C-alpha cells in the first residue's frame, strides 16, 4: 500500500484530532453550561471521525500500528494537521472563528470525499457530513450573534478573524500526497475548494457586520509537519498517559 494514501488519511485525521483536543480543553471551562456541552459535543464528533480514519490508516500500514499508536505515539513532526486547528482557545470569539473557518472547509472537503473511489473514505465522509453540517451551523450562528452584537463582542470577533486569517490559506495548499491521491481518484483537490470557501466566509462575515481581512502573506507548514509553538504543548498533554505508562489501558 502506498505511503501517499496513508499520509493522505493521516492529514485529514490529524486536523480532526487536534481541533477535537483543543475543543475538549473547554470541557468544564465553557462560557456557559450550554455552550460548554455544545463545544464538548463537537469535540466528541471530531474524535469519533478521527478514530475511523486512524483505524483505516493503521490497517493499511499493518504491523504494530493501531489507532492508539497513531494518535498517541507519533512525534510532533509526524503530525500533518494545519496550523489553524492548533491555535489556542484565546477567548470564545477565537474558538468560534477558528471553528467556523475550519467547518466551512471541512464540509466542502467531505462533500467531495464522499465521491472518493476509496469506499472506506467515502463512507467515513458520508457519515461525518451530518455532524459537520451541525458544527458549521453552530459556529456560524455564534459569529453572527457576536459580530452583530455589542461593540465589545464585535471588536473581539473581528480581532479573532484578523489574527487567525494568516492560517487559512494553508487549508488549500496541495502536498505531494494530496496531488497523488487526487490523480488516483481517492483524494480531494483542496485548491479547488478555495473559491467556494471564500464566497461562503465572505457572505457570513458580511452578515455579521465583520470585515474580511485583507492579507497578502500567509503562514504554512503544518501539513509538512512544521508546527507552531503551540503544538508541542498540545501533544505533551495529549500523549502524557501513553508516554508515562506505555500500553496502559482503561
Amino acid at each position, binding site marked *: 500500500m502506498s505511503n501517499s494514501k496513508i499520509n493522505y488519511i493521516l492529514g485529514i485525521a490529524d486536523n480532526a484530532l487536534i481541533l477535537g483536543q483543543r475543543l475538549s480543553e473547554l470541557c468544564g471551562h465553557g462560557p456557559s453550561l450550554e455552550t460548554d456541552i455544545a463545544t464538548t*459535543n463537537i469535540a466528541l464528533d471530531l474524535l469519533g471521525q478521527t478514530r475511523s480514519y486512524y483505524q483505516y490508516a493503521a490497517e493499511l500500514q499493518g504491523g504494530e500500528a493501531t489507532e492508539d499508536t497513531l494518535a498517541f505515539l507519533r512525534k510532533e513532526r509526524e503530525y500533518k494537521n494545519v496550523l489553524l486547528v492548533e491555535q489556542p482557545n484565546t477567548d470564545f470569539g477565537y474558538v468560534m472563528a477558528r471553528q467556523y473557518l475550519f467547518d466551512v472547509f471541512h464540509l466542502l472537503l467531505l462533500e467531495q470525499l464522499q465521491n472518493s473511489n476509496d469506499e472506506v473514505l467515502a463512507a467515513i465522509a458520508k457519515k461525518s457530513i451530518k455532524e459537520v453540517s451541525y458544527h458549521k451551523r453552530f459556529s456560524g*450562528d455564534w459569529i453572527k450573534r457576536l459580530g452583530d452584537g455589542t461593540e465589545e463582542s464585535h471588536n473581539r470577533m473581528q480581532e479573532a478573524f484578523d489574527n487567525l486569517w494568516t492560517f487559512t490559506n494553508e487549508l488549500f495548499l496541495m502536498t505531494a500526497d494530496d496531488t497523488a491521491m487526487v490523480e488516483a481518484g481517492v483524494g480531494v483537490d483542496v485548491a479547488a475548494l478555495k473559491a467556494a470557501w471564500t464566497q461562503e466566509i465572505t457572505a457570513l462575515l458580511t452578515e455579521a457586520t465583520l470585515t474580511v481581512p485583507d492579507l497578502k502573506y500567509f503562514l504554512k507548514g503544518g501539513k509538512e509537519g512544521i508546527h507552531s509553538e503551540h503544538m508541542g504543548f498540545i501533544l505533551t498533554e495529549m500523549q502524557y498517559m501513553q508516554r508515562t505508562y506505555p500500553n496502559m489501558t482503561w
Partner: protein
Amino acid sequence: MNNWPLWEVFIRSKNGLEHRHCGSLHATDATMALENARDVYTRRGEGVSIWVVPSSQITASNPEHNGETFEPALDKVYRHPTFYELPDELKHM
C-alpha cells in the same frame, strides 16, 4: 450570561408520542434555546422533535392550593377507568 432568560424544553422521543418536559436551560432567544436543547438533551438519540417555551410564559398552579385543587378527586374511584382490561398491544396508555 447569568441574565439569559430561562427556557423549558420538551422532547418528543418517537413519532406518535407526545412531547414531554425534560428540563430547562438558558438562552438569549428561541433559536439558541433550540440549539442548546439539542446539545444538552438529545445527545444520546433521545428525540425526534424539540419544543422550547420561555419559562416566563408558563402559568403554574399554586402549591398552597393543592388541597382544594387536587384532593376532592381522590375519593371518587368511579372516575378512574380501572375496570377496563387493556389489550397487551396497546402501549403508552
